[in-house]
C-alpha cells in the first residue's frame, strides 16, 4: 500500500475519528511505514495539546457583559415602541422631524413670506374689484340697449 493512499486519513487516525474498517486498513500500513507513523504521532501530540487548552482561558475586555446588555436593551426599546405605536403614530413620529424642518424654514424666511403674502392678497383684492366692476357693467348693458330700441 502506498503512502499517498493513507495520507488523507493520518490526522483523523491520530484524533481517533476513523471508523473501524478504515482504521484497520490505515494501521496495517502504519506497521510498516516509519514516516507515516511519525506523522500520526506528531499530529496526535498537537491535537492533545490543543485539547488541553482551557475553553475559558482568555480574559474578555472589561465591561463586555454591560455592552452586550446595553445593545439588547437598545434593541428591545426599538422593538417595543414599534409594537406599541399604531402605524399612523409611527408615521407621525417619522414625519415630526421633517415638519420641524419645514417650521424652521418658515421662521427664517418670515419677512419674505409676509411680503409675498401681502402682495398676493393686494393683487387678489384688485382682481376681485375688477371682476365685480365688469359684472356690474355687463348686467347694466342689455337694459340700456333695450331702452334705445
Amino acid at each position: 500500500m502506498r503512502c499517498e493512499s493513507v495520507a488523507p486519513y493520518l490526522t483523523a487516525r491520530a484524533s481517533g475519528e476513523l471508523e473501524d474498517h478504515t482504521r484497520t486498513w490505515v494501521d496495517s500500513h502504519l506497521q510498516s511505514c516509519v514516516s507515516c507513523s511519525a506523522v500520526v504521532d506528531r499530529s496526535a501530540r498537537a491535537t492533545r495539546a490543543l485539547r488541553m487548552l482551557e475553553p475559558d482561558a482568555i480574559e474578555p475586555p472589561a465591561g463586555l457583559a454591560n455592552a452586550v446588555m446595553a445593545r439588547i436593551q437598545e434593541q428591545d426599546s426599538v422593538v417595543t415602541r414599534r409594537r406599541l405605536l399604531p402605524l399612523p403614530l409611527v408615521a407621525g413620529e417619522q414625519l415630526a422631524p421633517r415638519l420641524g424642518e419645514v417650521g424652521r424654514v418658515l421662521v427664517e424666511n418670515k419677512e419674505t413670506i409676509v411680503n409675498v403674502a401681502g402682495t398676493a392678497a393686494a393683487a387678489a383684492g384688485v382682481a376681485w374689484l375688477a371682476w365685480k366692476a365688469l359684472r356690474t357693467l355687463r348686467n347694466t348693458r342689455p337694459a340700456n340697449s333695450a331702452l334705445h330700441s
Partner: protein
Amino acid sequence: MVEIPSHIIEACRQGDEQAFEALVRATERQTYSLVFRIVGNRDDAADVVQDAYLKAWRGIKEFRGDSAITSWLYRVASNAAVEFLRKRNRLAEPIEPDRMSEMIEAPEQRSDVDGSDVEAALARLPAAYRAVLVMRELYGLSIEEIAKQMNATNGATKVRLHRARLRLAHEISRSADVIPINREKKTS
C-alpha cells in the same frame, strides 16, 4: 463547563433580561475565548461576541433544551465568528503543497509544549484552519455542524480539518524549535 440553572434558562426563554444578563456573565469568558480563537483579534472578538449574544437573545425562545445551553451558545457564537470571517473574505482555502504531511517531518517536537505555545501556534494558522480546529477540537462541534456553518460538504470539511491539523503540528514544531533559545535567554 459552566452549569446554568434550569430556572435561569426558562426565565431567559420567557424574555427576562435579568436572567439573560446572568447567563451572559456566567458564559462570557468561554464565549469570548471561543470567538477570539476563531477571529484572532481582540477588538473584532468583542464585536462578534456582542452580535452573538444579541442573536442568542432573539433566538433563545427556540432553544428546546436538546443540548446544554452552553453548547447551544457555542454554536451561535462560532456561527457569528465564521460569518464575520466570511464577510471579510478570510475563509478561503489556503494553497498548500501537494504533500503536506512532509511539513511536519521536521525537528523532533518537545514534549513540554505549554498552552501559550499552542495558542501562539493556533494564532499563526490561516483563519479557515483555525476556525475548523477550534470548533472541532476545543468546543466539540460535529463535522456536520462545522460543515453547515462553513457552507461546505462533510467531505470538504474533513479535508480542511486534516490540513489544519497538519499545519498545527507544523506550527507547534516551529514553536518548539525557537522556545528553548528564548527560555535560555530568560534564565541566563
